[in-house]
């Protein structure tokens, strides 16, 4: 089992500039920085919205949630209460979805079943 997180990024530049980040591997304290770095690059590259496709994330822990929290702040630095409308999460595993709920992240981040549904919600 690899401890690395691989991130593939594609763009959908229609009405809105969207970066779709497909994550493969664990999202833990060892890989948290990789996700934050790639998200920062996408935002600096012009992305206004980010989709995190988590269907191939084999493990999610609190460090991964801190990275996701950091991304909401990157996307909406002036938005009070860290409630980002510019981030969508797609297909987390049942274990990962449980962590979103346990930590209350499901109250301010929309979670979708697939990428098309997430894009349609923007």
């Amino acid at each position, binding site marked *: 089992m690899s401890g690395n997180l691989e991130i593939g990024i594609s763009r959908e530049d229609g009405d809105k500039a969207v970066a779709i980040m497909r994550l493969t591997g664990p999202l*833990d*304290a060892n890989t948290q920085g990789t996700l934050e770095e790639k998200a920062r690059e996408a935002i600096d590259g012009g992305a206004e919205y980010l989709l995190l496709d988590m269907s191939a994330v084999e493990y999610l822990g*609190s460090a991964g949630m801190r990275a996701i929290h950091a991304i909401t702040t990157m996307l909406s630095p002036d938005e009070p209460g860290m409630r980002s409308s510019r981030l969508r999460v797609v297909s987390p595993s049942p274990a990962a979805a449980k962590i979103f709920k346990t*930590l209350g992240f499901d109250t301010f981040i929309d979670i979708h079943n697939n990428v098309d549904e997430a894009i349609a919600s923007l």
Partner: protein
Amino acid sequence: MVFKVVADLGQLSTIREFVTETATALGVDPAVFDDLRLAVDEAVTNVLTHGYDGSGDIELDVSADGSDLIIRLSDQAPPFDSTLTKSAGSRPPELKEKPGGFGLFLIERAMDKLVHRKLDNGNELTMIKCGVIGGSAASDTS
């Protein structure tokens, strides 16, 4: 079964794998494997980032006590700051600019009992998951 290693964050994946393999060998209900991996990952991460400066000796002892699973994590880091071992409470940590406390909050929800103990030259955290060995799990993992 005991796993001793000079650990760093790059070994978290291997440590989670050890938990899965050991729990399987002990006949633990697979429905709680995610909880066990989460609790151990968070506990080891806390030791490495708060106790050590990123890397240090840890020992993970996973055993059965009747139908209960006992996971004992010991380290040789300076004694825990008591604020790090105090219960995280019933509500998720507040979301501020740099949120903290998520790890302990998740451990408390994943496991049934936690016992912290200061050793002469380190710390020991015992995490117990009740009623998960032999037959259907008695523990609520919903």
